[in-house]
C-alpha cells in the first residue's frame, strides 16, 4: 500500500486486494516501460509530516511520470489505466467516507491536467480487485472474487 514500482517489458507488476485504494498504471507504448502506483488517498495536503510520495494521488502521479521520463520514457507515448476505488461497505454510514470515489475523481483530474490519456479503467462498485500489469503487451488484467477476469 502506498508504494510504486517502475519496470520494463517483459516484467509483470501485480497488486493484490485493492478496495478503496487505486492502482494507477502508466505505460509508454513504444519503449514498453511502465509503472504502477498504489494510491491510498487523494490529497497529501491533509496529512502531517512527510509521506511516501506514492501514497497520495497528488504526489504519486507526478512522481510516477518523472520516474518514467528519467528512465527513458517519452511523455507523448504515455497512456494510463486505473483500477480500484471501490466502496467496500456500502451502507456503513459516515465512518466510510467514500475515499474510493474521491481517489478516482482526483486521479482523473490530475491525468487531465498532465494531458495523459486514460485508455482503460475498472473502478467503483463494492468489490475488491487484484490486478496484473503485463509490460510486454501493456495489458492489465483485473480479477475479482465471483467475477470474470477483465482486461482493461
Amino acid at each position, binding site marked *: *500500500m*502506498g508504494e510504486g514500482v517502475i519496470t520494463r517489458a517483459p516484467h509483470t507488476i501485480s497488486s*493484490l*486486494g*485493492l*478496495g*478503496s*485504494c487505486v492502482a494507477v498504471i502508466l505505460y509508454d507504448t513504444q519503449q514498453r516501460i511502465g509503472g504502477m502506483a498504489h494510491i*491510498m*488517498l487523494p490529497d497529501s495536503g*491533509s*496529512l*502531517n509530516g512527510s509521506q511516501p510520495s506514492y*501514497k497520495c494521488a497528488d504526489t504519486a502521479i507526478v512522481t510516477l511520470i518523472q520516474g518514467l521520463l528519467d528512465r527513458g520514457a517519452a511523455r507523448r507515448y504515455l497512456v494510463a489505466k486505473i483500477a480500484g476505488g*471501490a*466502496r*467496500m*461497505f456500502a*451502507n*456503513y454510514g459516515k*465512518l*466510510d*467516507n467514500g*475515499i*474510493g470515489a474521491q481517489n478516482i475523481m482526483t486521479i482523473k483530474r490530475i491525468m487531465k491536467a498532465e494531458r495523459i490519456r486514460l485508455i482503460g479503467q475498472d473502478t467503483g462498485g*463494492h*468489490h*475488491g*480487485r*487484484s490486478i496484473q500489469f503485463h509490460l510486454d503487451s501493456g495489458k492489465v488484467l483485473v480479477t475479482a*472474487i465471483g467475477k470474470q477476469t477483465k482486461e482493461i
Partner: protein
Amino acid sequence: MNNEKFVSEEQLDFLREMMNVGAGNAVTALSQMLQREVNMDIPAVRILPAPQVSPILDNPSLPVTCVRMGMVGDATGDLFFIVPDEHKASLIHLVQQATPGPKDTGTAGGRSIITEIGNIVAGVYMRAIHDFCKLNIYHTLPALKIDMLQSLLDGSIAAMSHQAQIAFIIENVFVVEEHRIRTFFLILPPASSVQRLVDSMGQAKMALA
C-alpha cells in the same frame, strides 16, 4: 512480525492476558449459542503495522467473511471479525444444528449467523478491555462483507493513515468436536487511541502490582 517496536514485552504480556480473558468469555458465549462444549487454543496475539495484516492468512487472495464494526468511546477505531472461507461452513452448520425450528439455510441465514457471532466476539473483547483498562468503549452496529481481506481493510487504513498505524490481531481457534474453526479479531485504532490503550494498560498493570 516484530511486536517490540510498538509496545514493550511487558505490555504485550498484559495485552495477551487481557485478550485471553476476552477469548474465555467468547468460548462461553459460543458454547451457549451452539449448546455444546466449545474449547479453544490459546489465542495468538500479534501487533503488526496495519498495511501488513493480510499475510496472516495462508492465502490472501481467497475470500474471507468479514464483520466490520466501529469502536467508540474513550478509544476509537475499526473492528473486524474475520472468518476464512474454509472455516465458514462448519461454523454456520453448528449454529443451525443448535437452532430449533425452520432454518434459513440460504446465504442470508449464514450471513446473519456470522454477523451475530462477530457482534458477540466484539462485545466480549470490548468488555475485557473495559474491565482491565477502565476505558469506556463500545462497538457499533455490524456490517458484513465477503471479499479479499486486504480490500476490506484498505479504506480504514487509508482513513487513519495520517499517523503511523498499527493493528492488534487476535487469532482464535475454536474447537467444537472434530471441527477446528479459525477466526481473527482485528482492532485498528488511530495512533491517538493506541497511545490511550497502551497508557491505560500501563496504569492497570501498576495497580495490579
